[in-house]
């Protein structure tokens, strides 16, 4: 008489997963001064806002999972988020065999193990998708905060450039600035 044997297979997978998102844009600065001079002003302004210069001349600021990189030579901005996580997924699968030893049992066990591996891979992929969603949501959130800051930077650099340009045209007698409206009046004596 045959008896059914339950074969149980257990496995776990540990993996470091990583997800990220990035968008790039261009700061459009007016060509009031030479590109080098505009780049210098941008570099100075970014320096005051916590950006650090890297070996390739770009300015980088790291805030948690967010990295903002600005190339002062051409105004290129890259905003990047990276999320990392170590995940451990476990699973168990059961199969039935009519023999507790022999090739049939081995075949059934291998098949169960194969199915379990696929199942675990799917779980890891799910975790990866979750992490990707988190990274993208984080990037979208940061963009809301970053957009006004970049606008302020462009505004400040433009004002500084205008002041320098005015100084080359004559003697500045009066400068009236309105931070709120962003307007600036420069009087010069030629």
């Amino acid at each position, binding site marked *: 008489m045959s008896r059914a044997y339950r074969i149980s297979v257990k496995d776990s997978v540990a993996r470091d997963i990583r997800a990220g*998102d990035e968008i790039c*844009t261009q700061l459009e*600065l007016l060509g009031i001064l030479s590109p080098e001079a505009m780049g210098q002003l941008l570099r100075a302004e970014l320096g005051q806002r916590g950006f650090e210069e890297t070996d390739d001349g770009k300015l980088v600021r790291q805030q948690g999972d967010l990295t903002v990189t600005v190339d002062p030579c051409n105004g290129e901005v890259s905003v990047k988020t990276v999320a990392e996580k170590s995940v451990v997924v476990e699973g168990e699968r059961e199969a039935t065999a009519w023999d507790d030893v022999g090739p049939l049992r081995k075949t059934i066990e291998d098949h169960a193990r194969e199915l379990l591996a696929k199942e675990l891979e799917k779980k890891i992929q799910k975790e990866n998708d979750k992490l*990707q969603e988190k990274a*993208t949501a984080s990037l*979208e959130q940061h963009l809301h905060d970053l957009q006004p800051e970049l606008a302020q930077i462009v*505004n400040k*650099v433009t004002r500084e450039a205008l002041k320098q340009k005015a100084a080359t045209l004559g003697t500045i007698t009066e400068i009236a600035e309105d931070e709120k409206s962003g307007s600036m009046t420069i009087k010069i004596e030629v």
Partner: protein
Amino acid sequence: MTATCEVTRFEFDLLRILRALLGVIPIHQVQSLILNKRTPPACLNPNAVALVKDTLAKGLILYLVRAGGWRDEAFLQKDTPTNGRVWNRVPLAERTLTFSRKPLDFLLWLTAEHPTQTKVEWYRASTESTAGDDLFFQIAFDALRDDPELFDAFRSKSPFLNNPFSWLMNASDFATVDDPAPPSFAPLMTGTRAMMLECLQAPLTKRWLRSETAKSEIADWNIMRRRGIAETAILTQFLKAAESANRLDLALFPLRVLSKLFAGRSLEPSFWIGGLMADAPMRLAERIAIQRSALSLVQQADTFSRWHQQARAVGYFDEGYAASQFWKEAYEALYGGATITQARQTLAALDPLRVSAGGGETFP
């Protein structure tokens, strides 16, 4: 008195298929002839060959004249704007159509074989296509593409796949792979093909305009991505070829489409991408890339703006003055300045971080 000549049943069917491909009779009238398999004769009668030649030559000329050759327009002839209808402004040598054996081989095959079931090939890769061949195959492809099976059977064949007219006229047909490889557009800028392209400006404008306005009906992100990639590849290479050959007049149709699209109004990106539904790519970077590529034509605004600036810099005594004046006139007639500004605003709306100090020249 009407001269008559005898042809066999097979030849009669072949001539009917040819007339249908050229739009003389409706294509559905020959659908069964195309899908029937029969034994071809060892060779065609001289009468039949003469009729094929005559039908081809007259059919293509009629097509070109109807497409735009009849219009009294100006195009560049040796860097000089020349007015008139196509037969008045283009020298006879450049508007004489010649054909290789390819169209006849194709017609024999189409009459004898079932196009979707046969394994018999009809085209000879070694022989070079003439301008007449290219236009014929484009027209034939246009006539056959409404049948999905025939469309699939022909799309990957060399005379269609390597035909620059097909890519320009039906760009979306080639949006099936991630890295489309359009053929070189340089041959379209000289000789008979340039004359054909002059005649095709109006249909090209109409087709691209229709394609742009229908983009909002695309719901699938992947389809939009492939479409954008294909169109960007076509437009970039086409405009580059026109610039290299100093034939900016042949590249006016994309600017004409932009001008008709914007027509003094601002358009939101949703005009193109408003139909994209759920199942968007997870990454923001990917979503923005697809949205940008959907606006492939709008992205060419910078090229037109650059051409205009270059034209403005050409002085009276400089080489190419007449051609630059021609471009400036055409650009202004199409409200190029306003159109380009609107196009840039639309593109800017796609950038979630767009920061600008205002109008004017930017650095570097």
